[in-house]
C-alpha cells in the first residue's frame, strides 16, 4: 500500500463520515418539511432559503444549551451511551458499494471503505451493536420510563433482527454471495426479456416477499413509526432518551438518521440494484461523448447518483410512513415479529430454495 492508496482510503472514509453526518441535519429538515407537506402546513421556513438552515440553528442551540447531567444517573455509562449508539451507525455504511470498481492506470479502486467478502454479515454484526447504546442509556438513566424504553428497544431489535437476517438469507441464496459488490453485480443480469425491454434480475423481482419483510424489519430496527415504541412519547415520555439534554438527544437523533441512511442504502443495494444505473442513465453516459478516464469517472458519477437517488427514495418512504401510520402496541409488535414475520421469512427461504432447485431463478 503506497501513499496514493492511503489517500484514496482517507478520501473514502471522509466521504462516508460526512455523508452520515450530513444525513442527520438534512433528514431533520426533510422530515419536518415532509411532515408539514403531508399535514397541510408550512413547517420550518424562516431560517435560510426554504428553512434549510433550520438544522444549523438547531445544532447551534443544542451546542450552547447547558448539558445537564442529572444527579441520579450512572455518569460513565450515561455519557457513553449516545456515543455507543452513534458509532455503529457510522460503521455500517462502510461496506455499501457506491459505484462499480474501476481500474485507472493499473490501480483498481473500490468505491466502498471496506471491500469485505462477508459484507452483509458485517452489516448485521455492527448494526446490532447499536442496541447496546440504547440499553446503556435506559439503564444508566435510572428512570423507569427510560428503562421501559430500552427494554422495549432491546426485545424489538432482537426479534426483528431475526427476520431481517432470514429475509436476506434467501437473497444470498439467489445471488450465491454475501459480498455486497457481487450481489449488486448479480442484479445486472437479465431476468426476463419482454420484447425490447430487458427486466434485470433486481432483488425486488426475485425476492418480493423478502423485500417486504426486509422493509418492515428495518422500520423496526431503526425505531421508526409504526415501531417507534422505544421512544413512544405518549406512553413512556421519551423512552431511553428521557434524561438526556440537548447534545445527548442530538446524538441519538443522529444515530437514528444514520441508521435510516444505512437501512435505505441496504434496501437500495440489496433489492434495487445498488449503483446499477437508473433507466436512461446509460444513454446519458454514452451521449456525453467522453473517452478514457473521463468516461470511466463519469460512469462512476452516474452510478453514485443512481444509488443516491434510490437512497433518497427510501428515506422519503421512511418519512412518509412515519406521518401516515399509527403506532403498534408493544405486544403486537412482538406478535408480528415472531408469529408473522419469522415464519414468513422461513417460508420465503424454503420457496427460494425450491425455485433455485428447480432452476427457475
Amino acid at each position, binding site marked *: 500500500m503506497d501513499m496514493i492508496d492511503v489517500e484514496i482510503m482517507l478520501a473514502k472514509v471522509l466521504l462516508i463520515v460526512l455523508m452520515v453526518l450530513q444525513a442527520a441535519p438534512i433528514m431533520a429538515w426533510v422530515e419536518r418539511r415532509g411532515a408539514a407537506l403531508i399535514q397541510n*402546513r408550512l413547517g420550518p421556513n424562516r431560517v435560510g432559503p426554504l428553512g434549510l438552515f433550520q438544522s444549523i440553528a438547531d445544532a447551534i442551540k443544542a451546542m450552547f444549551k447547558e448539558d445537564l447531567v442529572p444527579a441520579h444517573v450512572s455518569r460513565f455509562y450515561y455519557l457513553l451511551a449516545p456515543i455507543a449508539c452513534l458509532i455503529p451507525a457510522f460503521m455500517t455504511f462502510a461496506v455499501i458499494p457506491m459505484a462499480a470498481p474501476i481500474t485507472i492506470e493499473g490501480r483498481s479502486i473500490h468505491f466502498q471503505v471496506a471491500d469485505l467478502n462477508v459484507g452483509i454479515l458485517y452489516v448485521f454484526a455492527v448494526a446490532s451493536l447499536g442496541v447496546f447504546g440504547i440499553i446503556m442509556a435506559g439503564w444508566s438513566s435510572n428512570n423507569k420510563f427510560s428503562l421501559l424504553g430500552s427494554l422495549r428497544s432491546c426485545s424489538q431489535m432482537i426479534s426483528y433482527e431475526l427476520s431481517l437476517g432470514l429475509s436476506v438469507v434467501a437473497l444470498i441464496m439467489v445471488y450465491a454471495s454475501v459480498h455486497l459488490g457481487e450481489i449488486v453485480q448479480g442484479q445486472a443480469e437479465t431476468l426476463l426479456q419482454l420484447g425490447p425491454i430487458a427486466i434485470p434480475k433486481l432483488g425486488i423481482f426475485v425476492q418480493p416477499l423478502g423485500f417486504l419483510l426486509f422493509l418492515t424489519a428495518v422500520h423496526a430496527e431503526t425505531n421508526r413509526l409504526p415501531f417507534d415504541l422505544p421512544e413512544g412519547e405518549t406512553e413512556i415520555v421519551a423512552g431511553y432518551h428521557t434524561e438526556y439534554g440537548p447534545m445527548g438527544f442530538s446524538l441519538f437523533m443522529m444515530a437514528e438518521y444514520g441508521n435510516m441512511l444505512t437501512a435505505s442504502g441496504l434496501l437500495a443495494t440489496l433489492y434495487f440494484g445498488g449503483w446499477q444505473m437508473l433507466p436512461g442513465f446509460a444513454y446519458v453516459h454514452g451521449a456525453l461523448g467522453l473517452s478514457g478516464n473521463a468516461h470511466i469517472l463519469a460512469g462512476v458519477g452516474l452510478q453514485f447518483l443512481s444509488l443516491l437517488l434510490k437512497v433518497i427514495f427510501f428515506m422519503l418512504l421512511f418519512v412518509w410512513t412515519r406521518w401516515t401510520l399509527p403506532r403498534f402496541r408493544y405486544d403486537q409488535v412482538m406478535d408480528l415479529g415472531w408469529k408473522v414475520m419469522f415464519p414468513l421469512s422461513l417460508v420465503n427461504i424454503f420457496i427460494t430454495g425450491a425455485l433455485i432447485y428447480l432452476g427457475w431463478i
Partner: protein
Amino acid sequence: MKQETEQRTLDLGLPDSEHYSVEHDPDDLWGDSQMIINIGPTHPVMHGALRMVAKLSGETIESSYCEFGYTHRAKEKLGENRTYHQFIVYTDRLNYCSALINNVTYAMAVERLMGLEVPERTVWLRMMCAEIARITDHLICIGINAVDLGALSYFLYGFHQREEAYTLIEKLCGARLTTSYTRIGGMMNDAPEGWEKEVKAWVGRTRKVIDEMDRLLTANRIWHRRTVGVGVFTKEDCLKYSYSGPNARAAGIDIDLRRDQPCMFYKDVQFEVPIGKNGDVYDRYAVRLEEIRQSLRILEQCADKIKPGPIWVEDKRVRIPEKHAVYNTMEGLIHHFKFFMTGFDVPAGEAYTTFEAANGELGFYIVSKEAPRAHRLRIRGPSMFHYQGLDTMVQGEKIADLVAALGSINIIAGELDR
C-alpha cells in the same frame, strides 16, 4: 406515674408490637417491590394535570389508582360570590374545548330560574354555537386520541378545521377559546351580517375533511388493533359509573339529552344519535366521528332556519342597558351602574338544568334565595364521572392501552376539577 401510663395503654387494648399489623389496604400499591410507575401530573399523555399511579407487571397494569384535583379552582364556591352575570366568564374555563356549550347551558339554567323566554334568533344562535363547540370538542378528542396512538397527521387535519371554527366563533364574540358569548336573557351581541352563510360554507369544507380523516384512519389495521376491544367499558359499567354522552352511547346506551329532553329548538331539526356496541376505544372514536357529521347536519339546518330578529328579552331586569341610553341619559347611567355593580335579583327557588355537552350531561344546579348571587351553585361535569371509571377500564391492560383509553373518554381537567 410511669405505671399509670402503662396501665392506660393496656386499657386501650392495643396489641403489642409483635402481633400488630395494619389491615392490608387494597388501594395501597406501594406495599411490595413491584414496579410502580407514576404517570402524571406532568406526563405528555395526561390531558391536563391528572395523575395515575400504576403497578406494573412487565408492561401490564396490575392495579392502579387515579388522582385529580390539580386544577381545582373552586368554581362552585366562586359562583356563590359572583353575580349571575359575572359567573359567565368562569363557565368558559370548565370544558375549555367547548366553552360555548358551557355558556349556553349556564344561561339556560339562570333563565329557567327567572322564567325568561329568549327570542327565537337567540335560541338558534345558541344552538349553532353549541353544535360548533361540539364539533371542535370532538375534533380535539379523536385527534388527540390518534396522536396518543402515533397518528399525528390525522390530528392536524382536524385541527385545521377547528381553527376555522374558532375564526367563526371569533367573529361572534371576539374571543377564540374563552368565549363568554351568552348573557342572561340574550347574547353579548348579534352575529355579524352573513355569518350563517360562512357557517354553511365551513360545514361543507369540514364534511370533506371529516370524510378524508375517516378514510385515513378508520379502516387502518394498526388502528383497529390498537382500539378494538381495548379499554372496554360495558353498558353495566357505564350505568354504574353514571356515564353519559358519547362514552355511554359507545357502550350501547341510547341516551342523548338533545333528543330525550328537547330544549331550544332541537325538536325542529333532524339528526340521528349514533350508538356503539362494545364500549371500547374504537366505538367511542366511531361514535364521536359520526356525531361530528350529525352536528354538521344540525348546523346546516340551523343556518337555514335562523332569521333576523331581536336577540334580547324585553325584560328590564336582565337586559344590559343600551349604550346610547347610558351615555346620554341620567336614568340610563344609573341603570347601567346598578346593573353591573349589584346585579339583578333572581327569584327564590332552585333549578337543575342539563344539556347534552360534548362530553356528556352538563348540569347546573342553582339555589337562589332572591339575591344577585346564587346561594349554592353546583356543576355536574361529565368528565368527573368518566374519570372514575378509568381504573376499571385499564385493569389488566398495557400501558399503551391506558393511553388509548384515557384519550378516548376525553377527560378535560377544567371540567373534572372545576
